């Protein structure tokens, strides 16, 4: 069952009905937990067991350790288990399917323990917080487990702060308010539109370039387009999922953290990482970057460099064991270090050029740098990445050797349908990106507007591509 599939919406509506039948807070939480376990059971019994057992273990361990002086060896012990579980299941995944993206997008065996990458981080962070005495351990096993399993976001985040999530659980609404319903519905609809109307239209193209034995990539130009499109696709796919997750949670009166803040408008790679996958980056900043930077702070610049390296090295391993992820991580380490050294000059340049021209240069540049790193992020293997890179540097054959007309259409005979569809998706993507700021603030408004919601529903059904690859890309992690 994928978020965005019809089954998911049936589950959501069913859960909502039962949820609002009860008045008792504990019962409401139990309904959400049952729905979440039901959701997980679609992916097999292993995800359910892993998630529940790890939650119980972490819950009681923290409680027990807190009472009897939580010392460092205990922290190491519990987090070794958490990390081991995370790596073990990641390894099982890699082992079974070879490479992340080469597997068919639909299939249960694909995710050995759905969402383990996300809730393990939550648990690790929780243990560190308790150890550091940032707050007291949770008292309710029910809400703790729910925080790990909550079905709207288990497969791809956002990563929750257990404390903040539980405080919102204590004030679950007794009635579905107009505000929650409207914002929730709008967010779900825009999420589905991002995924089904925009991201899906790119998948034929991108799969052809990155997975194909079919020689999709003929020239460097194709590689460039494929990388750019993948970055756009990943954004629409992933943030679309987030919109559905946040919108669905809103239906139960729960506010999840935003995970994206218009990343494609970033003017530097460090800004990108403040706008992209925010909850994950916050986690890494809080539990890896700052402790490392703090420890070595007397080394000044070197401390920053070292902290960046450790953060992205761990991030790369978290994403997968492949060499391609390490290269992806290394590229971002390099970008950030260079940026850190040039920061003063860039600021001066910004003053000199005025922010309009600065933006005009550095927004596309950031996009290009990130897209280049995504070549490795998306490639199935090192050999594939090498194949694409070789095409990219072959400057003599950079542009395709065909007539201008077919170059513009970029396709012949029956493939035209895909090409037209891809261009249509691209048009929608550009329109969305141009009006992103206005649109997202409008969609967070709580007034129910008949024209707006009708428009979203009609647009989704008329332009949605419902047939292929309905999995969200980030469900793999």
């Amino acid at each position, binding site marked *: 069952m994928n978020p965005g599939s019809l089954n998911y919406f049936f589950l959501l509506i069913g859960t909502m009905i039962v949820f609002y039948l009860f008045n008792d807070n504990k019962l409401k939480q139990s309904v959400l937990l049952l729905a979440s376990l039901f959701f997980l059971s679609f992916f097999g019994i292993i995800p359910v067991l892993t998630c529940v057992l790890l939650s119980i273990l972490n819950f009681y361990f923290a409680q027990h350790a807190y009472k009897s002086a939580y010392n460092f060896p205990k922290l190491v012990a519990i987090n070794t288990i958490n990390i081991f579980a995370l790596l073990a299941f990641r390894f099982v995944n890699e082992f079974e399917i070879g490479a992340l993206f080469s597997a068919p997008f639909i299939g249960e065996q694909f995710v050995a323990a759905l969402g383990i990458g996300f809730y393990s981080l939550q648990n690790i962070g929780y243990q560190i917080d308790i150890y550091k005495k940032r707050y007291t351990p949770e008292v309710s096993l029910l809400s703790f487990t729910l925080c790990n399993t909550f079905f709207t976001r288990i497969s791809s985040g956002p990563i929750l702060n257990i404390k903040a999530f539980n405080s919102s659980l204590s004030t679950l609404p007794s009635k579905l308010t*107009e505000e929650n319903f409207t914002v929730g519905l709008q967010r779900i609809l825009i999420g589905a539109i991002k995924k089904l109307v925009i991201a899906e239209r790119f998948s034929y193209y991108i799969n052809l370039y990155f997975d194909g034995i079919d020689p999709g990539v003929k020239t460097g130009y194709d590689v460039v387009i494929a990388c750019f499109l993948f970055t756009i696709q990943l954004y629409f796919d992933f943030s679309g999922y987030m919109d559905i997750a946040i919108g669905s949670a809103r239906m139960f009166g729960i506010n999840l953290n935003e995970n994206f803040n218009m990343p494609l408008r970033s003017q530097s790679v460090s800004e990108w990482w403040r706008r992209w996958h925010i909850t994950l980056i916050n986690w890494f900043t809080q539990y890896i970057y700052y402790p490392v930077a703090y420890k070595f702070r007397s080394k000044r610049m070197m401390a920053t460099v070292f902290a960046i390296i450790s953060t992205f090295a761990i991030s790369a391993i978290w994403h997968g064991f492949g060499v391609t992820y390490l290269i992806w991580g290394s590229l971002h380490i390099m970008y950030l270090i260079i940026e850190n050294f040039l920061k003063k000059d860039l600021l001066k340049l910004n003053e000199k050029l005025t922010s309009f021209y600065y933006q005009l240069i550095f927004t596309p540049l950031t996009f290009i740098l990130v897209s280049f790193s995504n070549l490795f992020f998306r490639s199935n293997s090192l050999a594939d990445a090498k194949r694409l890179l070789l095409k990219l540097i072959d400057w003599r054959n950079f542009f*395709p050797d*065909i007539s201008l007309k077919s170059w513009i259409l970029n396709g012949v005979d*029956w493939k035209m349908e895909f090409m037209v569809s891809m261009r249509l998706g691209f048009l929608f993507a550009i329109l969305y990106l141009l009006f992103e700021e206005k649109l997202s603030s409008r969609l967070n408004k709580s007034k129910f507007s*008949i024209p707006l919601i*009708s428009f979203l529903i009609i647009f989704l*059904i*008329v332009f949605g591509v*419902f*047939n292929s690859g309905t999995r969200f890309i980030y469900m793999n992690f």
Partner: protein
Amino acid sequence: MWKKFLFTILVCLLFLSAAEFATDYYMKRYPRLKSSYISQVKQNADILVLGACEAAMMVDPSLLDSSTGLKTYNLGDPGARFADNYLDLYQYLKFQKAPKYLLLQVSPESFYPIEDKLLTTYKHQAFLSDTVVFNVIKELDPEYVKFSSIPFLKYSYYNIFSMYKIFGSIGYSLLNKKHPEDRDGFIPPPLFNLDTSALSESNVITLNSYTWNNTEEKYFRKIISLCKNRGISIVFYKLPYYHNYYNANLELKKYEERIRHIATENNYPYFTYDTSRFTNDSKNYYKLENNLLNRNTIPEFNKMLIRDLKDSVFIQ
């Protein structure tokens, strides 16, 4: 709030019904969609050409017409497999008079197991509401059938394909065009000679080996029995295979034997063009991977086809 919500749903349903009605209307009248075109315009053909894109792009009815005196219609459909061919023929016979001859492209490649069992051309046929078509699609693409039976999502599943055709159809009706550019169903390949986007020669030769596809054979035999019922005599022909490709692949020869066996079993002629002079040079092809000749060599291929037809079919 709930009143507003219900009103919204009502607005959406009204709009979507209108959109679905318009889609049905335009789909039925799109001249470039052969299955729609044959339901609208009488063809009166004596020879019907059936096959995939190779048939659509390589058999030129105007050449056949002028040298045989018989009227030809090309029902080749890009991406079609035997199941699609069967549906095409079924649709044709539903609206048109039965032709005398059926020129059927049967190459070993026609039995490729293409990853899954999906139909390749009937992705837009939700509007046909024909039980025969429905059952074939149900067998080969159950997900599509399941999804498109949800109200208002008739065209959503293969949106990419239907959207393209609706745009095309609206364009045609704005220009008031009732026929496609090529009236006899012939779709000449693009102008350039060897398509640079196609597989390289060595890639074609190392292409996978395959196993006989029983689903394809089933529909192949259905075509044969449909023709027998309607008194249509069938002529099989094989594409002019690029010789390196053909010689390197032992499987192809086994396939050909089986096809020949089916041909003799039914007493149908089977034309092959492996030794023709253009199979020796890759420059004669537009696309090597599916043995598709280019614009320069197609007339010559048609001449050979006509000669064979005259020699062994029309003489009887």
